[in-house]
Structures are given as structure tokens and as C-alpha cells.
């Protein structure tokens, strides 16, 4: 559905996107994660046709997004991170206004808009003035608004930011719903956990490049591999160190008395092999564990010392 290749964008000397590559399949609910300033919004704005790319290519549903702006806009629905609403407009009129942009007017527009508002649980607010709605409602209204032309791809920039837990929960439900309806959705957030629960795929971006992309499980997997093995030996620490050092999967290790921390990039089987080796060489191992991390940690790690995964 979305194929980004070598996307490059700079603001003066600041490189915002550095040959970014990304591909999102149809029907994915893609979580786009990265710290502030990593290039999430830039990427999304380029995909949405709001920003000119300096290099690379973007294809959305077969449309060259950098060239065929008009076709692109028919395919995507975009919800920016910060947005405003028109005063003096009722929610339904707000919807109808955007419907009119796509040439949908009259009763047809009205019923369609009401349907969409129902989808975002706002059907009872149709005659409320938009500037009187709560932020969560505005967010949902804006989401509904981005659906007026039934886009194939939804691009939601930080849709949950500034929402209270209940509103987030509701938003999640709506998005899942949309996903179930078959929409391809890109959601950005700097909070990975938020996305983890609902996204089918997650991509992590930092300093203008994708650092990781995959299903939540794959990401978790990668994450675990990267965690050090923590080994507590009761005796024969010297032998243990020697054995560990001999293992080719070990990148480095640190010793703190009986505690050995090992960077080990082997898989579970090799992990088990190392343990067996230690035990076979009379090292009394009381604890042999690879820390299972969470997404936040991954995020922190990825953004703090990127070279870990290189």
C-alpha cells in the first residue's frame, strides 16, 4: 500500500529524513514510532502531499505520491497532530463542508456524514457547535472528517496525544474497528506501548531513518536478543569467564564479582548451549537469565544508543 524508498528531506543543514525506506502492506495498522524530531511527522506530511520531498520516492496504492498529488489525496485521509476547527459550525456542517470538497452534497452528504459520526461515536453531537466539543470529540470528529471520501489509507499523526485515558481507549476501539473494516492505517506516536496493543506492524524511526520494522512479536524478539545475559555463578568464576569468552556469540562481558553480564547475540538454542557448557565445566550457575524488556525500554535503547543494534 505504501512504499517509501530512499526518502530524503532536509531543512537547511538539518537532515530530517535520511534515505528512509519503508513499506506498508494493505490492511496493516502501522504504528510509526520515534522520538520527537525523528522524522515521523515529516514522513507523514510527505506521504499526505503536504510537504515536498528532496529525494527518493513514495508510492501510495500505486500512485506516485510525489508527483500525482490529486490522485494521492483521493486515496488518503490525514489527521494532523495539531489541528483546529471552524467556529460557528455545527459538527454535522463541519462534516458536510469536507464532504462538499469531494463533491458530496445534500442529503447524500448528510446521511454519509451521520454514518461516519456514528462510527466515531459522535452521532449524538451532530448539532453541537464544533468549538464546544471536548478535545477527544474533536479528535474523533477530525477522524470522521478524514474518512468522508472513503480513503484507502488513513494517516493519523499522534491521534491520542493530549487525550485522557478514556478517550484514548475509545480512540483505540475506533481504530481497531477501522482496521477491521479493511483500512490501511498509519498511526504515529512517540509512545510505543500505546501502539503495541493495536498495531499489526510497528516501525521505529530515529534521526530520519527506520531503525526497525516488524510485527510486535518480531520487534519484541529483536529486543530480547539484544538484552544481555545475566549470569550469577556460585563458584568457579574464572572458568566461567573463560568459557564465556570462548563462545563466538559473546560480544563482550563484564564481571562484577560473581555477577557476569554478557552481550550474547545467539539464539535461544545457543543460549542453552552456553549454559550447558558452563554446567559441564563445573561452574555452579545459580542464575542464568536474559532480561525480557518492554517496548519502552526498546524505545529508550534505540534512541539512546542506536549502535547497539548495528
Amino acid at each position, binding site marked *: 500500500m505504501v512504499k517509501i524508498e530512499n526518502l530524503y528531506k532536509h531543512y537547511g543543514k538539518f537532515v530530517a529524513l535520511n534515505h528512509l525506506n519503508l513499506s506498508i502492506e494493505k490492511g496493516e495498522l502501522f504504528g510509526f514510532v520515534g522520538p520527537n524530531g525523528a522524522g515521523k511527522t515529516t514522513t507523514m506530511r510527505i506521504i499526505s502531499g*503536504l510537504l515536498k520531498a528532496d529525494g527518493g520516492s513514495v508510492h501510495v496504492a500505486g500512485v506516485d505520491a510525489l508527483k500525482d498529488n*490529486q490522485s494521492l489525496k483521493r486515496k488518503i485521509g490525514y489527521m494532523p497532530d495539531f489541528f483546529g476547527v471552524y467556529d460557528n459550525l455545527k459538527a454535522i456542517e463541519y462534516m458536510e463542508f469536507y464532504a462538499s470538497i469531494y463533491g458530496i452534497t445534500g442529503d447524500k452528504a448528510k446521511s454519509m456524514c451521520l454514518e461516519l459520526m456514528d462510527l466515531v461515536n459522535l452521532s449524538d453531537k451532530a448539532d453541537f457547535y464544533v468549538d464546544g466539543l471536548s478535545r477527544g470529540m474533536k479528535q474523533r470528529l477530525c477522524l470522521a472528517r478524514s474518512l468522508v471520501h472513503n480513503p484507502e489509507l488513513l494517516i493519523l499523526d499522534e491521534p491520542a496525544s493530549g487525550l485522557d485515558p478514556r478517550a484514548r481507549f475509545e480512540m483505540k476501539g475506533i481504530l481497531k474497528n477501522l482496521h477491521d473494516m479493511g483500512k490501511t492505517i498509519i498511526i504515529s506516536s512517540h509512545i510505543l506501548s500505546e501502539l503495541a496493543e493495536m498495531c499489526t506492524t510497528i516501525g521505529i524511526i530515529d534521526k530520519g531513518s527506520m531503525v526497525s520494522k516488524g510485527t510486535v512479536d518480531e520487534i519484541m524478539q529483536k529486543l530480547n536478543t539484544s538484552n544481555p545475559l545475566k549470569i550469577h555463578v556460585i563458584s568457579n568464576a574464572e572458568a566461567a569467564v573463560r568459557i564465556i569468552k570462548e563462545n563466538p556469540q559473546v560480544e563482550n562481558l563484564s564481571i562484577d564479582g560473581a555477577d557476569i553480564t554478557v552481550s550474547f547475540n545467539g539464539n535461544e538454542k545457543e543460549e542453552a548451549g552456553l549454559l550447558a557448557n558452563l554446567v559441564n565445566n563445573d561452574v555452579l550457575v545459580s542464575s542464568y537469565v536474559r532480561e525480557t524488556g518492554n517496548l519502552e525500554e526498546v524505545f529508550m535503547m534505540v534512541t539512546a544508543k542506536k549502535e547497539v543494534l548495528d
Partner: protein
Amino acid sequence: MKINPVYGKEVKLRVRSLKFALTILFFNLGLVAIALFGFEMIFNLNMNNRIDYSGAVMVYFVIICLEAAMVAFLVPVFTAGSIAGEREKQTLEILLTTVLKPRQIVIGKLMSSISMVILLVFSSLPVVSIVFTIGGISMADLMQFVVFIIVMSLFIGSMGVCASSMVKKAIPATVLSFAMVGIVCGVTAIAVFVANEGANIYYYTVQNSTGDVPDVSWVMYALLINPAFTIFNMVSRQYMSDDLLYYMANALNGEILPFIKDYWFICSIVSQLVLTLLFLKLATVFLDPLRRKEKARKNKGRKSKKVAAAMLVLLIIAGMVPAVPKTVYASVKAKALDPEGRITIRKDDISATVRLGYKGRTKYDRNIRADAVIENKGSDFTGKFRIEYTRTEAEGSVAIQRNFAAAAGESKNVQFALPGIDPEANIRIAICDENNKIISSEYISANFNDDQSLLYIGTLSDSQDSLKYISSGLAADKNSFGASDEGIVFELESNDITEDARMLDSLDVIIIDNFDTGKLSKGQINAIKKWIGNGGTLFLGSGANASKVLDAFSGTLLKGTIGSVKSINTNFGVTRAELTKLFGENRANKRMPLDITQINIRGSKQVLSDGNNNLISLLDYENGNVMTAEFSLALDAGTAGLYGPVIVDVIKKNISEKRKMDMGLSSINSWQSYSNVYMYENDVLNLNSTDSLPNLKLYAVLLLVYVFLAGPVIYVIMKKKDKRNLLWGIVPVLSVVFSVTIYLIGTSTRIQKPFINYVSTVELPEKGNGRHNINTSFTITNSSSKSYEAVLPEDSDVMPSTLNGYYYSSYSSPNREIDEYDYGIEYSADSTKLHMNNLSAFESVPFKMNNKSKNTGTVQTDLQMSDNKMSGFITNNMSCDLETCLFYCKGTLYYIGDIPAGKSVDILKQKSFREMKYSYDFDYQLSSALGGSYYDGTADISLRRKIGMINAFVTDSRYADTWFYGFIPNNTETAFTDNFTFDEYGETGVYKIVQVPERINGYDVIGSLEDYAEEYDINRTNGFYVYDQTTRGIEVTYRFPEDFTLKKVIYNRETAGGNEFTLKTNGYSEDAFLGVAKVKDKNTGKYVKLLESAKKAEIDNIEQYLEDDGSLKIYYELDNVQNTDVDSYTLPRVKLAGTYKKTRSRS
């Protein structure tokens, strides 16, 4: 049609709030107030019915200019916030991710931002339409304004949208858009100013004031993009029809392309629309995220400055489309006339030798004689001789031209009179080809500023040298007129006697001697007669040439006999003492030989005789007179040296009263008197009927109904139906409906074609069966600034009037055609055409015209006053009825009313109104007689015109104490009203100055002491100082005609108005003499009381007090009344009665 979604949403939003309705309401209420107040001012502050229709047009312009200003200020505010506002509200990004193209957003924003102001302007059309109740502005003019407003809104709006798109925040965007409007309007205007100044500076410094000033008129093209100038020029064309562009280009020493000049409005809106598209494109570029260049943040400020600078350059470049350089005009280099008052212009084989005035001189404010001798040395030529001069301070000009055809080798004389113009003014003479194109021209600085008191004498003689003593006599003798007076003698040739009497206007006296008047054409003789009628003095010499000189005038002017020639020796009736007294030095009194021809002219009186022989007689003719010498005025050198001054003195003493007034030699201040005549006449010509004015109350109601309907009422209705969006259509529809309604109702009062206000007067002949001469002052006023023509019969002597004055101008003018002047008069063989062109709506142009009426006959007065009782009959012998007739005799006004043709009225049966003679009292007297006052706004307009005309007549003829005045009913055919197809409003008055002989106790009354003093005449009294308020005692000498002997004085205790005198208890008297009048006893040399105020007296033995020469000296001793009120010193109204030696013929 698919509505732009942005526009659709915005207009929906705007109409939602009640503010929409209230804005329409209050905006229009304000305009209604201005319109109604303006019209109320014009209609009801109409002192003397002088309704200034052009004021209605001014109201229109005030309103449209206010609206234009509103648009200019509101549009930037609305548009600047449009895109920047979305950006601020963070709604723009969303819009940009939709399929809306940036262009659509820009256009939607522009349209929605200007829709409100355009709706407001549209909603005001019914208010503006009130101008259609008067006229002056056409529907097309209004449409032009609407087009202008729409284009200006788009243009200014596009700048605002552009600024809004360039700048992120609304407030800086507003500032920027105002700056852009300022640049477009300001920079272009400044450019013109700078170019103008620059060219002048360059001329004075680099060119060292030589050559032509550089042509910088191309800078004017910059003004095409200036909406302020567009409306300025539009208003100028709609209202003034003034060629503003021409004058601007001229000031910039060039011309602009004729196409652009003629279609300036279209060119300017087209160029503004092109710029609008450019700005919109620019706005689109700035809005389009994919085309907008991302800016590094730190460079932001500098870059926007660069953009602004680029915009400025763009604007200036756009303004300066290269111009085609054309002929450069410098300021006028006027030529002076040669000493003979001539100048020649020529082109190839055609030359015109033009003469202005006499030897280039003309008295201030007199008609100017202008003629040209056109010589054609080539093939047959048909062309026009034209004189052009400046009319107003706005440099409008007037052309007067006469068409001529000169065959090969022929020479043609072309003549006409010009109205008195500003003495400093340059005039331009030109020969034009038959297509009215100037082929040769010259500017002349003519300097027509001779003092009115100069005596202009023209001499026509085959021996001009023999009349030189007249000019030396004028220079030598300055006593009788006072030290400052002198005169000029012009030696005339026969072609100096023009066939148009007005061209002779400058001359006071024409002397014809030793000249065959048979050589003069009938037209020339008639012109002389007319000129005499207007106050000229014709002095004819005879002697051996009597028949040669007199024959041409015999019959109508002179009736009598010519005797044979005899030789006498004469002292011209003067003693040595008198000669000395007259000329202030010892002179020999020698009798000189003279050939005289006895001439007996009926009705004449002697003005010079030597006791035995009558030498010079005088015949009064209308306002002027004819003197006939029984000898040839060509005196030999000896006689001329000795008695020449006596002849000159006779001339000076006998110029007409009218001329004396003109020359300021009368006791009546001529300047004041004339300005009063003009004032009255001008007033009358400015009177417009209030009957046909629009009913303001009706329109007030209509407009208020409209304003409330279009504002809150329809809003509330639509709100209830929840269809407020329809207001965008309903309000304009209502507006059009009401505009059309007002337009249609206004048709009944709208002035749609030129109209004429006129004042025609006929001085009735003494007897005469011929057709009357009508003197008409008229104004033509058009209801719009459109050009039009008025065609008059060829014999219409029409010329511009100086009522509005003429102005000095040093600017050159273009080579125009006759219909490109403010107005032009074209005399041709078969018609006289008035070309009325560059005039404002309702601008009245004054003309004077002289022509023949179809009416004949006169009014005969057979009246006498005997012992203070008037009796007799007034008979209308005219071919038409008369109405509103008045007769005035020495302070008493008789109201006669209608006199049908052929009927007589008995003066005893008429209502009489005795009053003071002074003008302010005369007003009262007149309004009592006529039952209405000039100053009463409710009086019938016809009556007010009549009162104004009588006032003008009375002011003009104050010296006449007895006159008849009546009016020819308007339905009677008169020559003037036949001439035009326009609507004419005015009156035709006829008057006659008559004399009513008065007798008391069998004696002829020659007048009263007061009449004598009031009509200051050196021959009558030295009573000029009798009004001196500081002197309590004064001696006045009364001189009587030689054939009159004073026998008796009668004092009836009358006041000046003929009312009985009563002494007021407070010591003031009213218009009556207070004091004692004494005469000198010749025997004792002491003064004795003649009479005293408030006591009737009749003194019979007055002869004993007369001086040797028959004059009476009275010493007035005024009472010591503490106030200095002039009226307290009024002379007693004492009748002077006596006998004439022989029966005088009296006219």
C-alpha cells in the same frame, strides 16, 4: 455549477449571524441619511429658488466615494485574515490534504472575503438611485461604478489574499496587504509627482531652461493600476466631463496614447484584473505546499523582505508600460500685437491678419472687437477663423469661430465680438481647415486692461490729420473730468465700423467728418445706430460735406433739413474769461472764419452756439445721442489751436448718461451698479422651479422600507425558514427591485435633456413699427456631462456672457476640434451652433443674444402731472398682450396688470404705491404692488423672475425716474423661444423710459432740488458733496438750462418718496431734510431763510435771488442732530418751477 466549497462554507457562516442583517441595516441607514440630508439641503435651503441641481450629483459622488473608500479599507482587512487566519487556527493543513487545489482555496477565500463588501455596495444601489430623481447621472454611469467596485474589490482582495498566503499570521498579513495597497496607490501617484518635478528640475538645471521640458507623460501609465485614480478619473468624466488625463499629460509635457486616453477606464480595469491574476497566482504558489520553497528559519525575515522588495519592483515595472513620445508643449509663449493691434498668422497660401480691439486696446469688461482679414493666395479655401480663450480656473476653454470661404486670390473679412475677458489672459487665434483642424495658430497676450474711465473716441475721416486737435485737446484738458482722466483717439478706417454693434462697444464716441458715409454698408449704419442706442455718441461734422456725411443717417436716425453753406466769423460762443477758466491760462478770444451749413434736426437741442449761429446740436437717441456740428470738424490749424479744446469740451460734456455710468463719471457708482445688474440677472437665471422637484418624503419612506426589509426583516423571515443562505440572492434582488422602482418613479422629475433659463428684454421704441430687438441673457444647462449641440438661426447674435468670469491661464492647449472645447460657438452662413461639450452635469453656461422679435409696436404714454396729480392714459400699441405692467413716476409705483393689445388704461384708476426711491425700499414697494417678494421662497417662480428682472432694470436705469415695464405673456410667440428644442424657462420684459411733463401753478417743473443733486452733472449742480456727513453747512449751486428761467419753488413737506414729512419725537427724521435752507440776497450779500424743514412754503419771487447766469445758490444749514445718519441730510424735496423761453420739443 459547482460552488467553490470554501466560498460556500464562508458565505454560509457569514449569513448565520444577525450581524449580517445589522450591517446591511446600519450601513444603508447611514447612506440614506447622507442622501436625504444632502437632497434636503439642495431643495429646501433654496434661498431664492436657486436650486443647485449639481448638488444632487455631488450627493451621488459623496456616496460612491464613501463606498469606494469603505471597500478599500475593508477588503484588505477581510482578505488578509483569510488564509493566515486558517493557518493560525490550524485548519489550513487539513484543507491542503483534501482534493482542494490551492487555487480553489485562494479563489474561495477571495470571493468569500469580498462578497460581503460587494453585497453592501449592491444593497446601497436604491439609496444611490435617488440621484435618478434629479438626473445628471445615467444608469450606465451607475453600472460603471458597480463594475469599478467589483474590480477594485478583486484587485485589492487579491493583494490581501496574496499577503495572507505569504505571511503566517493574520495581523502582519493585514499590515502587508495595506502596504501593498499603499504601494499600488501611493507609489504610482508619487511617481507622477516625482516625474513632473524631475522633468522641471532637469529642464532648469541640465537644459539650462532651453528647449522643451522633457516629456515624462509616460509615467501616467503607472496610474492605470491605481484604483484611486481610476475612480478619480471616472468621477471626473462622469461629473465634470473634464479631460483630466489630457491636462495631466500636458503638465508632464506630453500626451498619452489616444486609445488609452479614450478608454482609460477599460484599460485600467483590464490592467488591474491582470495584476489580480498575478497576485492570485502568487498566492497560490505561496499556498501550495509542494511548490512553496521551504525556508530555513533563520533566513525567514530577510527572505520576506526580499519578496516584498521584489513585489515592489514588479509593481513599478507593471505600472511603467513604455509610452510613445509625442509633441512636447512648453508653457505658452504668447506674442504681443503690433502697435496697430495686429498680428498675422499664416499657413502656406492662407494668411490671417487679426485685429483685436482698437490698436490692440479694449476697455476692461467691454466686448472686444475681433476681426481678421484672410487672404488666400492659393486655390479656393473653405475654413474657419477661431479665437480660443480660457474659461475657468480649471482651464476649460471656449472657442468662438466663424466659417468662411475664400476663393483663390480672394481676401475675406471675418469678424465677431468677444466678451470681456480677463485682462491678463492669453487668447489663441487660429485658422482651421474645414474639418475644424487647426492649421496655424498663435497665442496672444492682448492685455485688455484699459481703465473704464478712458474716453475712447474713434474718428472716421478722409483727412484724419485735421482731427488731431481732438487728441491733443484730450491730453491737454483735464479739468472737467478730473485730473486722472484722459482719452484716446483712434483713427478708424471704414472696415473698423463693424456690422456687429457689440464690436464697437469699446468706443464711446465716433466722429465722422469729411467722409462719404454712403461707402458704409447698411449693416454698418445699423450697427452704428444700435451702438448709439446702447449709449454711444455719434458726432457728425458737416460744413461743405454735410450731405456726404449726413445722408446715410437721414430718415430713421436724423430727420430735418440741410441748408446752404455760409461763411461766418465765430468765437464758438466762449468768452476770453471762459476760455481762460476752462483751460487755466490766458487765451486770446479771436473770432475765426468758419463755413457753416444750417442744419435743422427735429427734436434736437443746441449744445453750442456763438449767440448768432447754432454750431452744434444734440439729439438724444435711446441710451445715446447724436451730435451734429454745422461746420466741418476738420478745423484749420489756427482755429483748432484756439477753439479745438472747446469742441473737445462739448464732446466730453455730452457723452450719454449710460456712458458716464460705465466710465464711473456719474454720481452712481457704476461698478456697483453693474455688479448689481449682473447679480439680479444671474439670480433670475439661476431660479429653478421647485414644482418639479422630487418628493423627498416619498423617497424617504421607500428607502426606509427597503433598508429595514433588506436588513432585519428578510433576515428574520429567512431565519425562520432556515434558509438564510438565500439572503445572498434576496438582498441583491430586493436592491434591484427598489432601484428600478426609484428609477421609474424618478422619471417624472428627472431632467433628461438640456434646459434653458432666460431673461429677455425689449427696449420699446419711441414709436416704431419695426420688429423689436430682443436682448436675451440665457443659460443652457444639461442634465448630464454629455455633449450636445444647440442650433440657432444664422442671424442670432449670440456670444458667451461673462457672468461667470474668465480666468487667466498660461497653459497651452492642444489642437482641438470645435466640439472638444468646454463649449464653442460656430457662426456659419446658415446657422449659429453652440457646441456644448466638456461641461459638468447641471453646469449652466451663460450666453447673451441679440435678435429680432416677431412682435412690433410700442407702449404709448400720454401722461401729465399737473399740481401733483397724475393723469392720462397708457396704451398698448403692440402686436401682443402685456401682463404684470408697472408704471413708475418719481417715487410712485403704479400697478397696472394686464393690458391687452390695442387697449388703453387710465392711470387714475390704477393702484399706486408711494414709497422711498431707494432700492431697498423699492423692493418693498414692488412686493406690495405685485403681491409677492423676490426673497419669498414660496412666491410663484414666474413672479420672482419678473421681480428680479425689474430689479435689474431699475438698478441699470436708476437715473430714469419715470418708466414703464411690462411682460409679454409666455404663450406669445417671441423670437427667442423659437430657437431651441429644449425646455425654456424665463420671461420677456418690455420697458420704456418715459418723461411725464409736470406743471405747477402753470409753471413747468424742471425737477426738485433733490433730483438735481442726485443726478450729479457738472452742468446742473456741484451738489456732489451735499451728502457729506461731516459738514453741517454747505452751499450748493443749481444751474439751469439756458432757455429756462426759475420762477418759483414749492416745498410741500414731502419726504423723498412723496410721503408727508413728520418730525420724529426722538429727533430723528426719516428720509427728509432737517434744517434751514438759505439764499443769498444779492443786494445785502446776506443769507436769508428760504425755507425750513417741516414747514410748507411757496416762494414766488425767487428770481431776485438768481445769479447773473440764472443759477441759484442755496446754503443749507443742517440741524445739529446728533446722529450721522445720511438720511437726516437728505435735501428738501422742493419743486423747481419756471418757464421755458420757447416751446421745447419734448420726447
